[in-house]
């Protein structure tokens, strides 16, 4: 069983990847749940290409219809088919969150490794600034900026804004990781045997950082999804573009709750929950698997039972 879980390095990359997925499905229910939810989300997103309506067109179908065979998720007061609107909404929210994660984590990785490898006064001064950004509540700042840019905040700009405010905590953690790795014996062994610093980082340190980055990226993803939803519900983003948040905004605007058009709220709420739970399950199971220490522990437990 141990052989199946840790494929031999000699095995073909294709086969190894296949074996990893088989193992994960066999041993980690969280992975299966996450992967299924994620596949559904992605398939749903791809459907947006087939949409018969443009996402910004209104009054293309009769308004306020409850879910039926013709309109699986019902229609909105704006005369839009909620099913097709949701395909765009999920896609756009994913794009915003993905971009925000890339922007925020890039800053964090660069800054964190720089501070971790440099040390000294520069490190201390910049670290205390980083610590400040961790404590400062970011939502009022986000709202302040979004309120000033009201109406001009496109999707990429929104992603940039969220990303620019989400680097402090991950940067602190990368720095801590790098500091630990720098002190490890194998780093010194590698350095003394003539490996160049960059090679040491890429060959010896990155494998340790990968599960860490994966877990961290999902944290950033969850934050970005939450902030997109929050800012949109507050009416601070481009409300003409369907996202999870703007869909809820319009549902609130037409008082979907009070007038009994529940489906209009349930669709984006359910989609958000399925999406974040899926991503989170997938990421925890993957980072557990990628970390050799937890994988060894899990193996030992399997062997014992």
């Amino acid at each position, binding site marked *: 069983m141990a052989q199946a879980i840790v494929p031999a390095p000699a095995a073909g990359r294709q086969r190894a990847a296949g074996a990893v997925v088989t193992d994960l499905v066999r041993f980690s229910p*969280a992975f299966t749940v996450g992967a299924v939810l994620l596949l559904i989300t992605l398939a749903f997103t791809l459907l947006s290409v087939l949409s018969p309506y443009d996402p910004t067109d209104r009054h293309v179908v009769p308004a306020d219809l409850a879910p039926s065979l013709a309109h699986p998720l019902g229609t909105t007061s704006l005369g839009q088919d909620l099913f097709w609107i949701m395909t765009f909404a999920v896609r756009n929210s994913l794009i915003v969150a993905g971009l925000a994660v890339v922007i925020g984590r890039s800053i964090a990785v660069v800054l964190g490794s720089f501070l971790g490898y440099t040390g000294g006064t520069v490190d201390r001064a910049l670290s*205390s*600034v980083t*610590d*400040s*950004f*961790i*404590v*400062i*509540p*970011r*939502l*009022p*700042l986000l*709202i*302040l*900026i979004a*309120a*000033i*840019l*009201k109406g*001009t905040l496109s999707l990429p700009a929104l992603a940039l804004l969220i990303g620019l405010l989400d680097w402090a*905590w991950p940067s602190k953690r990368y720095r801590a990781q790098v500091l630990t790795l720098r002190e490890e014996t194998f780093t010194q062994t590698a350095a003394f045997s003539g490996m160049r610093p960059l090679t040491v980082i890429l060959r010896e340190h990155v494998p340790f950082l990968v599960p860490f980055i994966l877990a961290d990226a999902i944290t950033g993803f*969850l934050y970005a*999804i*939450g902030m997109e*939803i*929050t800012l949109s*519900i*507050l*009416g*601070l983003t481009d409300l003409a573009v369907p996202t999870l948040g703007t869909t*809820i905004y319009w549902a609130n605007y037409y008082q979907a*709750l009070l007038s009994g058009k*529940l489906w209009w*709220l*349930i669709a984006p*709420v359910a989609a*958000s*929950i399925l999406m*974040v*739970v899926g*991503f*989170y*399950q997938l990421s*925890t199971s993957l980072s557990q698997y990628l970390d050799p220490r937890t994988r060894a522990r899990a193996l030992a437990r399997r062997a014992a039972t």
Partner: protein
Amino acid sequence: MRLLVSYVFPRLLQWAVVIVVGVTVAFAVPRLSPTQPVDQMLGRMSGMTATDPAAVASLRSAIIAMYGLQGTPLEQYGRFWQHLLRGDLGPSLTAFPTPVTEMIWQALPWTIGLLGISTILSWLLGLALGTLSAYRPHALWSRLLANGMVTIYPIPYFILALVLVLVFAYYVPLFPLVGGASGPPGLSLDYLGSIVWHAFLPALSLVLVLTAFRFLVARALASGVLSSDAVTFAETAGIPRRRIVSRYVMRNSMLPQITDLGLQIGAMFEGALITEVAFSYPGIGYRLFTAILQSDYNLILGVTLFSVVGIATAALLIDFAYPLFDPRVRYQ
């Protein structure tokens, strides 16, 4: 004395840095934005009346003076601090001339109450449940609890609040969905009861999310402590399990959780703001929401500055409480 130098002083310094950084960002951001808030405001105000060039010009300089936009950026920055240190955040634009600080003070008790109670409750619940669950990782209740928490944790605040609204508005209409209290304010039992009644759903949604996070961290920390020599020794020595969990495991895994609380308090405050909007709860978050709706830029800036100072101070107080729980820092 050494505690003062090695523990209190660096934290006071960090507190000052947090405030300076936060205030500077709040100062710089509106000035770096590509749009012109002054022109926007001018457009809104002069759009209502007949446009007389002289009147528009004087209105313009009045707005510029009110925002402190005259002079070089450095002068502006200096004035910004002067006003702030005097506790003067300017008047609200919509409830003119009520000072922004007064509007924030009115809303503050609601937010502190909501955030305070949910923080304490979720911290204790998360710590206790997480530790117990780590101690019995294979029991059915432990696995159910862990699965539940893993599911709740990633859900955004607003979405969870909406789920509660949907459920409690239609299926179990037990709790009020909006407002903070009903009836005439006073120390009557009815009024106090209505406060608790109204706070129930907002607090529940906050407690759920915060407990989930605390639970996951506590569970991970406790399983680390459980495999430590101290616990193995205690078990071998035949110390009762309940005592091991409360005296050894919980106490040890509690310490990083206190530090973490200081770092997370800003994020938790954000959650409280969002929850207040979702339930129309009359705290700072709801004030912020109405300020956005009415484009009351001064009030938004005021809330931002106030939150920076307030959260930095809250984090400082939590840090100062730490030596009370960790004797190692005390006897350093």
